[in-house]
């Protein structure tokens, strides 16, 4: 079926099966490969995008049901020349290792901060449930706190 999606502020069309997950339309049809495939069952969070500002695991929602919604991927989170505070904090705190899960991790954190600008440790633990096999968790937590405190905070790792 022909669908129209609003992705990163652009209207884009795709011809897909009704049940094709949003993830594969983003990656294969639109070439937005920053959103990663990790498990296909919404268990790992590597494919996290924003739908209307809420973090959603795109491997498990049909693209066809997302028409009319505002979809944001890691590529659209912030302009390259003006990174999102989380992206800046991620560099400052040298968070990624292999980096594969980090798009999803940042998108989950960004949705959290948008709703809760100063999350507690418990808030972060409850809301950022993505899997990272390299074990970057403590740095993720540190970077979220740093981003929540503003761009002047954080300092060298």
């Amino acid at each position: 079926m022909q669908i129209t999606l609003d992705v990163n502020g652009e209207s884009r069309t795709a011809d897909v099966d009704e049940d094709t997950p949003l993830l594969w339309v983003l990656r294969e049809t639109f070439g937005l490969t920053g959103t990663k495939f990790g498990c296909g069952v919404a268990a790992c969070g590597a494919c996290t995008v924003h739908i209307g500002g809420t973090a959603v695991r795109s491997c498990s929602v049909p693209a066809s049901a997302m028409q009319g919604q505002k979809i944001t991927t890691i590529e659209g989170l912030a302009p390259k020349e003006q990174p999102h505070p989380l992206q800046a904090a991620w560099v400052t705190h040298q968070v990624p290792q292999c980096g594969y899960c980090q798009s999803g991790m940042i998108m989950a954190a960004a949705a959290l901060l948008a709703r809760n600008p100063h999350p507690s440790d418990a808030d972060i633990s409850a809301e950022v449930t993505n899997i990272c096999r390299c074990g970057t968790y403590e740095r993720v937590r540190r970077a979220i706190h740093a981003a929540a405190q503003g761009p002047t905070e954080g300092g060298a790792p």
Partner: protein
Amino acid sequence: MNKWTRRTFIATGSLVGGGLALGVAGIAFAPNRLRVTPDSRDGTPQLTTWVKVGTDNTVSVIVPHCEMGTGVHTALAMMCAEELEADWNLVRIEEAPGTDDYSNGYLVRTFVPAVATVPKSMERGIDFWTYKLTQMMDLQVTGGSSAVRGTGHLGMRVAGAAAKAMLIEAAAQQWNVPAAECSAKLSRVTHSGSGKSATYGELATQAALLKPPVHPTLKSRDDYTIVGKPTPRIDIPSKVNGSATYGVDVTLPEMVYATIAASPVHGAKLVSVDTAPAEALPGVKKVVKLDNAVAVVADGYWRALKGVRALAPKFEDTGKGADTSDTIYSAIGAAIEREKGDKVFSSGKGGDALQGAANVIEAEYRVPFLAHATMEPMNATARIADGRCEVWTGVQDPLAARATAAKASGLKPEQVTIHNQQLGGGFGRRLPGVMDFVDQAVRIAKETSPAPVKLIWSREEDIQHDFYRPAVVGRYRATLADSGAPTAWVAKFNIKDDAALLPYAIANQDIRAVAAPTHVRTGAWRSVAHTQHGFFTESFVDELAHAAGKDPLQYRRDLLAHAPRHLAVLDKAAAMADWSTPAPAGRARGIALVESFGSIVAEVAEVEVVEGRVKVHRVCAAVDCGDVVNPDTATAQVEGGIIYGLSAALFNEVTIAEGRVAQTNFHDLPMPKLADAPSISVEFIRSGAALGGLGEPGVPPIAPAIANAVFALTGKRARTLPVRV
């Protein structure tokens, strides 16, 4: 002290358009057989490895290792830039392409066919080649190697020092002054008397005409300005905005997609499959039958997946369909019971020391199969056209991938090109010998030729067709003297590896291994045999300490009088964790010490039981890896190792039922998440000893540290993993 005296070959050449290219390699082959070869990518003549100084004053360090998150590109470039006195801001890093001309392994294989045997435990991809290279240089490598201590220490530093010497010499000739009066700093050579100075870029072309020094002088560690300072990794910016490209992200014109289902019972061949149900689906282009698998090719991954799910392939009955984890453990136990086993180590009276002993302490430990579960599922994109095969994938050894692709395609290795991408995790899953995904992609590409095909495994396929950490059973017996110190240590298990050797002074030892193969595919899992043996050894030592009524820290200390580095690491971890003061109410601490890959690591875990589950609050790790190149990256590697080890200690296991892996995805193979991550402190002891590895040594101590803490807290000894309370 810092004079480079190893037998090393340094070769130089000029770059097209000017500039200096310099390579270093072992000297077990004749220097004149190392050639300047054209770079297939940009036509720049360039040597096999390591550094280019361009007329634009940039320094390009060519790193013959893949980046999988360990920061190896940055660390190796730092080592080169340090000796070169390069301005770090002008340093660029390139990964060497997976072609012969850039590979250490190629040099070894081509010029030194005699260097063909290495210990089994060493056959670990890039480290394998580094090992061979270091072996050629007459160095003793006693553990698994690593990029930093092999390539970096032996190659990068020498390359940088040699290039610096040549640039200084070029300046001295140009100014007609003694080279000794010239110095280099921040990519610039200066003459002290005249104040004349020139950038490396200005000197590079002339430097390229000079003879390289035979024994370039290396810097003293006290003079380091780059190595040892936390340096931001070059790969990180692209990993926060989605622009980093992994194997799974590769997109080619006319590309089609495939996914696959291999025999659930490992080793069984495909007997038959009715392809019609898949072929009837929209977008499906082809069903490809492989030796032990069936793949569906479609115009997208989702349609390929639906195609595979529509099939009911029949696989042969190999007689393994009734195997379970229990039958496998029983078979291992029976082998341990029945067989004398191969000697790993013995000393003193060996096992005879147990004869007639009044108190023999015994324990049996067990660890399950474990999956790597890299976040990026296995994938490879292959194109066969015009008599060539090209593969885009992320692997830990591109040359091994090339050999795999050559075999699968029926082409010669020189007709195969590997475009290595960043790895979404390796941990041993993307090493030589386990590149089944490359083999499959190439075989499918034969059917889609000339169109390229991207094969992506589902997570279910990844978890069910890993090369697992082997399941191991270990039986341990010991006797104690009246003082409580062990006088005999007798061990038998089913994984032969020096990882079972003890750091502790025990007079009588008998350590043996039996073979108990299963049909389940096994391979190297981050830190290899040290994860099993670290758990066994450090749990049993802890049991002996408690049997002797001693503090587990002091008990270990008493057995390490001969090993000052181990002692220092142990003491440091204990001090970091406030071992001498009681843990907070409801918590307890456990300690463990494991040496692996040339590094000594002690970890203290502080645990609590919360709602019937072990919660690790805090981990303190002390590490002696000799010295540290990039401290923040080094810390990250130990942090990551602890979390990786935590997954095995508390969270998941792979079990076998009906001959196949029972787990399918992260719901039944749970992983630690942010909420489960302890606070981790890492400190390094810069002992100045030979550099040890860092990618793996953080892993082994965590499981025993946790198990020992759980015993201290509950009085219950966890002898199997994952620990349950």
